């Protein structure tokens, strides 16, 4: 691996880490699609800021461009508050408008190498590392790397400092308000953090792929853990791991690094979705099947209990009638009956009629009591 390639890889991992921090909170606050809107509209912010401060990557420009994220969220809020459209439509109207304005301005005004259409939708990690940070005639590596490292540290520091506020405002806004934490301040703080990160990542992954960097690792992490701290750490870790895998694929197929990383993130998500030990689809399916059997045994016990007053030999406790009354298949009825018998919950009055044992009766009483 050449030193240039190494720099690309490290930059990619830094971008992932920086995006994962606001992303984790956005996912928890159910703002994924707001993140989508912001990632689109910072384009307009970048174009406008570029017209004022024509220095790409200058901190002033980054901050100026980020204001557009806040403007977007305010615009969505304003539309929603007219009561004329709902939130989903408010998002779906606001961001295409601002994004379109940005695209038009680019094609009409700023014919600059950094701001062509290609950059907008995918950015270019490879290209971005050619911009070097140079101070007093000494090179210090790619500018993007420094920029994103700075944003990552800033995001991390803010998240640590305001961990309590973010947590409370996310899970219990009312409690937050009574504790003197302004939920809307936290909200817009997070929006601003998201915007700064999206603007910062613009030249490396573009305006749209960045939403993947923000949302996919946290959503994947959410499937793996319920602990907030582990979730945050895992989000960053999964982002970095995807960058590693994505970089390798991009090098192999000679394709877009950002796109490859998205592919790996997607693959990772699907793998976790299927195989996560607690939340995965396979585990869920197994659990459902087990629950169905367990539930059926309880159901059989309760069924016999409810009808115990009818006498030992009625239609309701005839083994052959379970199919009719409970809607079970013959095979399933036999399995459940056998299982309940093995567990000593029921006994056969004779071959066809079922009765509860004392253990079974106690269990039924408990189940019905709650």
């Amino acid at each position, binding site marked *: 691996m050449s030193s240039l390639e190494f720099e690309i890889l490290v930059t990619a991992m830094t971008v992932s880490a920086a995006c994962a921090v606001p992303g984790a909170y956005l996912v928890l606050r159910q703002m994924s699609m707001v993140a989508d809107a912001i990632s689109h509209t910072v384009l307009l912010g970048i174009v406008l800021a570029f017209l004022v401060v024509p220095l790409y990557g200058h901190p002033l420009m980054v901050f100026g461009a980020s204001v557009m994220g806040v403007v977007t969220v305010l615009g969505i809020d304003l539309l929603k508050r007219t009561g*004329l459209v709902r939130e989903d439509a408010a998002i779906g109207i606001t961001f295409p*408008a601002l994004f*379109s304005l940005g695209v038009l301005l680019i094609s009409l005004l700023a014919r600059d190498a950094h701001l062509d259409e290609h950059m907008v939708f995918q950015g270019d990690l490879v290209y971005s590392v050619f911009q070097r940070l140079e101070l007093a005639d000494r090179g210090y590596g790619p500018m993007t790397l420094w920029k994103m490292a700075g944003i990552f540290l800033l995001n991390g520091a803010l998240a640590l400092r305001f961990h309590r506020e973010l947590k409370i405002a996310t899970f219990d806004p009312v409690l937050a308000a009574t504790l003197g934490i302004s939920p809307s301040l936290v909200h817009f703080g997070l929006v601003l953090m998201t915007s700064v990160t999206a603007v910062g990542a613009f030249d490396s992954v573009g305006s749209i792929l960045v939403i993947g960097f923000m*949302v996919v690792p946290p*959503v994947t992490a959410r499937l793996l853990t319920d602990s907030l701290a582990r979730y945050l750490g895992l989000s960053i870790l999964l982002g970095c791991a995807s960058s590693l895998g994505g970089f390798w694929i991009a090098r192999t197929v000679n*394709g877009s690094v950002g796109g490859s990383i*998205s592919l790996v993130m*997607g693959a990772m998500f699907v793998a976790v979705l299927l195989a996560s030990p607690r939340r995965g689809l396979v585990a869920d399916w197994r659990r459902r099947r087990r629950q169905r059997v367990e539930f059926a045994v309880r159901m059989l016990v309760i069924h016999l209990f409810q009808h115990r007053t009818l006498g030992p030999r009625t239609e309701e406790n005839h083994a052959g009638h379970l199919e009719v009354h409970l809607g079970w298949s013959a095979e399933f009825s036999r399995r459940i009956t056998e299982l309940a018998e093995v567990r000593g919950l029921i006994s056969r009055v004779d071959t066809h009629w079922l009765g509860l044992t004392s253990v079974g009766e106690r269990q039924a009483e408990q189940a019905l009591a709650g």
Partner: protein
Amino acid sequence: MEAFLQFFNDYTLRNVLLGTAWIGVVSGSLGTFAFLRRQSLLGDVISHATLPGVVLAFLVWQRREIGVLMIGAAGTGLLATALIQVVDTRTNIKRDGAMGVALAVFFGIGVLLLSMIQNLPTASQAGLDKFIFGQAAALVQSDVTVLLAAGGVVLAALLLLWRELKIVTFDPDFARAAGFRVTVLEGGVVTLIVVATVMGLQTVGVILMSAMLIAPAAAARQWTDRLSIMVLVAALVGGTSGAAGAVVSAFGPQIPTGPVVVLVLTALVLVSLFLGRKRGLVWRWHRQRRSRKLADPDTVLGALGALEAAHAGTVRGHPKAVVRMAVGQSAQVGQALAALRQAGLADEHDGDWSLTERGRSEAGRRARDQGG
């Protein structure tokens, strides 16, 4: 003027105009249902998710006719909606997270495939990246034919299933209880939305096509309280914006069509939000102002009379603010009080208003008249 006429005589431009207007009509009509079902952002996910399908179709068939590319686009678009459905119903992930993942991953894969195609030595990927923002000028006669056919199918389905779509959108539980196959119909709606989205990819582009679905409906909703009229207005708004976008972008080769269409649409949405019949913000402000209109002297006289009757002997008069509250809402009572004073019915001392002897008898007489 001559250039204008020439424009409409131009065979290519006529195609472009017809094509984009038609796309607007179809997506506007169908978007109405997405809007009402609160699935506005689903269109956004679908349109982003069509990118890998477009590129894959191109890779497989090595052709870039719109019909071919639409098949691929519909494929990945539907796949993305299926993924959202599974994640939403089967895991602890919320719907917005599922949508974000689907949008980002599919679009990312599309970007990757696109970058790989650009590196192929033989393939002329000419214009495939135009799918990002759309370029209506690329529409040719055969494309328009395909668009007309696809749109015709969508609109025919809409008409044929009108009652079904209406009841399923308004009250899915009741529809199921009444014996409709709701799951099938809901799947059908999503499929139609996918087809409508895919139709616009070439001219409006994958990123902005979602606005083409939602904005016409949002505008139309402000003008009517009838579903059928709403669909017609949405179709009109969509068609107009599409045509306008095509015309504007035809004048400058580097102007992408999609953003122009979206900006025209946004303008129409804003106009509708402000001026829309009954619901419009301007009317709302107007009504609020009118409700704060000048109170008429008779009402104020009555209110003052009632106040004095209630507080007989305890106070000498009532400040203006109290009179205003007695009249109700936030009526302007100043002018009415001045008129009463001029007529010698009321008087003011140190900011407190009271009735004169004549005013009191007048108020009493009116109260009796009204009481019958």
